[in-house]
């Protein structure tokens, strides 16, 4: 459900990875550097592709910059960028870009990835249904509350709780298996 305007007036809970910024005169560069990394990690966990996540977040920041005078005055501009980036991840824009990115990557070095042990989480996430994967990533990487996820996704809170519960259980089961296999080696 990506049908709603981002809920821009909802302040993030205290102690989140994306602290609220002063509403007036936010400096775009500072805003970009403060949030690019965390947003990219969220999208990478969702898409399973770090390069693509960087593309998506960069495009979301472009769209924010194009209307920066408005977006910067929102109570929670990060919510706007996150919402746009997540929507881009499921949109036609991504599909249209995929072929392009693939072609381009043939000529480029791959982004140096972390060791194979960390790939296990990506692989386990990929097993989850999309809605559960979104909920889990938003909760554990974006540090969003159930209420905030419900608002971003446009679903009741009970639905989010159910997604989180099932997603977490499936993920834990998958990771436990992976760990066992690794231990036996």
């Amino acid at each position, binding site marked *: 459900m*990506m049908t709603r305007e981002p809920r821009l007036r909802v302040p993030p809970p205290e102690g989140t990875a994306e602290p609220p910024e002063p509403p007036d005169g936010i400096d775009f560069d500072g805003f970009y550097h403060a949030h690019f990394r965390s947003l990219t990690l969220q999208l990478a966990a969702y898409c399973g592709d770090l390069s693509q996540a*960087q593309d998506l977040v960069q495009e979301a920041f472009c769209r*924010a910059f194009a209307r920066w005078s408005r977006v910067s005055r929102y109570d929670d501009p990060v919510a706007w960028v996150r919402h*746009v980036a997540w929507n881009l991840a499921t949109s*036609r824009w991504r599909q249209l870009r995929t072929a392009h990115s693939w072609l381009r990557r043939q000529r480029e070095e791959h982004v140096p990835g972390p060791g194979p042990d960390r790939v296990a989480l990506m692989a386990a996430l990929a097993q989850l249904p999309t809605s559960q994967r979104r909920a889990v990533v938003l909760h554990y990487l974006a540090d969003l509350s159930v209420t905030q996820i419900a608002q971003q996704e446009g679903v009741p809170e009970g639905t989010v709780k159910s997604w989180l*519960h099932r997603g977490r259980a499936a*993920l834990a089961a998958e990771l436990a298996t992976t760990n066992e296999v690794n231990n036996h080696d």
Partner: protein
Amino acid sequence: MTERDDILVTSEFAAFRAAYSPAVRPAGPAAVRETIRQRRRRTAVVTAAAVVLAVAIPVGANAALQRRTGRPPAPAQSIEPTPSQTLPSSTPTTASPTPSTADPTPATPSGRISRTQLLAARLDLPDWPWYVPKTCTTAKVRLDPGPGVIGDSVPVLLGDPDYGDLDGDGGAETVALVSCRNGEAQVKQVVAFDRDVGGRIRPMGQIVGTFDELPDITEFSVRADGRIRVRVADGQACCGTPGWMPQRQWRTYAWSGGRFRQVEGPTSFGPNPHVVDLAITADDITWGPKGADGTRTGTAVVIVRNLSQVPASLVEVHLRMQVGTTADGGDWAACQGGPPPKGPIICRFGPLGPGATRTFRFGLRNSNTSSGTGIAEVDPIGTEAFPLSDPSRENNEDRYRYR
């Protein structure tokens, strides 16, 4: 159990964050500025070209067209970064061989498409219903500007498009109402369009189209939140359907899960209070013996039924037969204004409630010795302020013999 899962998952994500974070290579805010600067410049060029076209200087127009198509439309070609688009390495992270975001994101052309641009393009449309004429095409369609009389059944662009961010991606898309004539009526669909990276107009999807339970679409608008309000009707005011008959509703649609779905407003019309379904049967009439004045009498047994769920405030029964027959006795007293004088043999009565049946035994006097076949007709009248219609005509008349 759940708590243990929570701890495990939390620690896995923490490790993920720590491991992947150094691998993120932001293209930098300078790349954002450059991308937006290029997109704005491109928009300005297109606008300038449009101005040249507007003053209709053929040579200038050609030049403008060439400039507009300066970006080759084929995606595989057009999105190759050209040297002029390559960014100066303005941020430290882009000094080394760069990840994919380092070159400026190719402009995603604006999805805001004017009526003129829609009419000028060859468009792909979502499917029409299966029963439309073959000339209602969907591939590479040049929309007709309408309105007026369109001889052939061809896709027509109705009115002006509207714009909004339908899929929440931060950019605008275009919504338009297109139609195609099918017999006397029109099939219509509300379609969302966007541009792909090559600048070509692509259908995003059908928001709603006319079908059996939804015969007409008359208006639409895109709300600030990207949802689309569409005014629908349960009948098309044309070809014998009066304008007062259709019920109208606003329904709201939204892009969700890769297609458009209805999210607000009623999902069905319910019975139309202007539409009834009346039925009539009439028995054969046998004239009695000739009286002293040379006339004969008989009785017409007429049964009128209201098969609909809608009350009929006033109903008219008309017995068509050869001249020389007049109303005389029986149930004529139940008619508005009593027995009809000389002329058409008509009885107006009401109300006739939903599902109600009314049996009349109309007395008739015949002054000649005619025999033949008559027709009993029933029509809903209603009132001037609230007229009624009965589109299902097949049960509104019955034939009877008289002799």
